[in-house]
């Protein structure tokens, strides 16, 4: 740009250098950055935990969320993640088998709960599923999404599998299944409690929490990936995730902690 004289642009460079020096000087010497892959159902919790962790350790977290299966595929094909928070135990175990994760680092950070959710009080129940007025029931796909597998078990548990089959619409993740119900396109959704509880108070619609005994527990596994084995931020984050401070927040969002 013509109005910038050479002299001024030199000043500009010195200014940038000064700011950079200042930023570097104020960061703790050991601060590192870790890339965290998070199953989408845990993302709201992660967003609550992240500032606490960063404030107390000085480390920096970069969060990517998606369905468990998609994140798994990305790790398998070389995505630069240091920690994987899965929505099940099976996918982290597969990464161990493929030498892409550190075997003894795996632990259950949360146990998920399912709920029958609807905007209307009359449709947030088991009985509403077989009511002819209920046209569409949203859940995550049992092919790939851990909450979809659990929802399928719930239907079988209550003997509803055949009755509701024509009404089922499948989200690719539990987040999309919830969006189908939340936009009103599905009358009700079999979704994770965590997604409902992230909504502001008063906008949470109606729900009936499915007893945990109606399906195999949805244990969610956290694991250190091989890429992050020497990353201080990744190690500190996993330690923080297992701490009572973090567990308290995890429970607030509708998970159980082992």
């Amino acid at each position: 740009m013509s109005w910038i004289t050479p002299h001024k642009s030199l000043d500009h460079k010195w200014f940038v250098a000064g700011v950079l020096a200042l930023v570097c000087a104020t960061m703790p010497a050991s601060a590192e950055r870790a890339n965290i892959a998070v199953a989408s159902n845990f993302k709201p919790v992660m967003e609550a935990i992240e500032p606490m962790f960063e404030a107390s350790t000085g480390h920096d977290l970069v969060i990517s969320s998606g369905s468990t299966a998609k994140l798994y595929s990305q790790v398998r094909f070389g995505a630069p993640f240091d920690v994987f928070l899965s929505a099940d135990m099976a996918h982290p175990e597969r990464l161990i088998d493929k030498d892409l994760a550190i075997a003894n680092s795996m632990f259950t950070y949360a146990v998920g709960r399912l709920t029958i959710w609807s905007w209307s009080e009359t449709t947030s129940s088991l009985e509403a599923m077989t009511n002819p007025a209920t046209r569409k029931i949203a859940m995550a796909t049992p092919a790939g999404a851990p909450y979809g597998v659990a929802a399928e078990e719930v239907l079988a548990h209550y003997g509803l599998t055949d009755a509701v089959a024509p009404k089922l619409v499948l989200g690719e993740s539990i987040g999309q299944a919830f969006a189908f119900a939340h936009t009103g396109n599905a009358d009700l959704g079999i979704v994770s409690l965590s997604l409902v509880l992230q909504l502001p108070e008063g906008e949470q619609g109606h729900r009936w929490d499915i007893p945990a005994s109606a399906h195999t527990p949805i244990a969610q596994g956290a694991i250190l990936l091989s890429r992050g084995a020497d990353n201080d931020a990744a190690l500190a984050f996993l330690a923080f995730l297992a701490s009572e401070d973090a567990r308290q927040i995890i429970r607030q969002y509708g998970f159980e902690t082992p």
Partner: protein
Amino acid sequence: MSLPDLAALWLTIRLAAVTTIVLLIFGTPLAWWLSQTKSRVKPVLEAVVALPLVLPPTVLGFYLLVAMAPDAPLGRAWILATGDTLSFSFAGLVVGSVIYSLPFMIQPLQTAFEATGRSAMEAAASLRAGPLDAFFTIAAPLATRGFLTASVLSFAHTLGEFGVVLMIGGNIPDRTRVVSIEIYEHVETLNYSDANSLSIILISVSFIVLTAVYIFNRKQAVHVG
């Protein structure tokens, strides 16, 4: 290859065919009007037609999901008329695909009509041909290649559609589980061999269709009658 895979492929071909027919019916008058008009709103309409080319399918999918909800006017009207929701239905996918493939029908047709020129139409009019008669005896035959290109591109583009269907389809076998969704699900469940065989079929079908149209475009002489 297992049977459900072929069901998804068949559903995809049906969706692409229906979408192409709907686009031919509604797109031809629009493309014709765009090719003839001197209206000042023409560039605005052309921009609207081209929007699906540049927008991510998530934008379209999101608004369609909102518009098709049973408490929205469109969604409610559809339920009153058919008793079923428009979202998660084959008809809903047709609506989404028609919008998403609109530029692939309109643009080649408009170009073809513009190439026809006004003089031929004016000559027809001077021979007392009505506008519709002139269109079907002069403009349409002259635009044969345009029709073919537009139809094939619309068909092929709908075959490859993914994002919009993912957002409004609900993954229902025989109704909304098209082949791109099926491939996606195979990848998600680590079933790479089925994902591979379906992908190869899709590549082959698309390649054959496109090659056929290029060969036809080179050989076909235009007959006006």
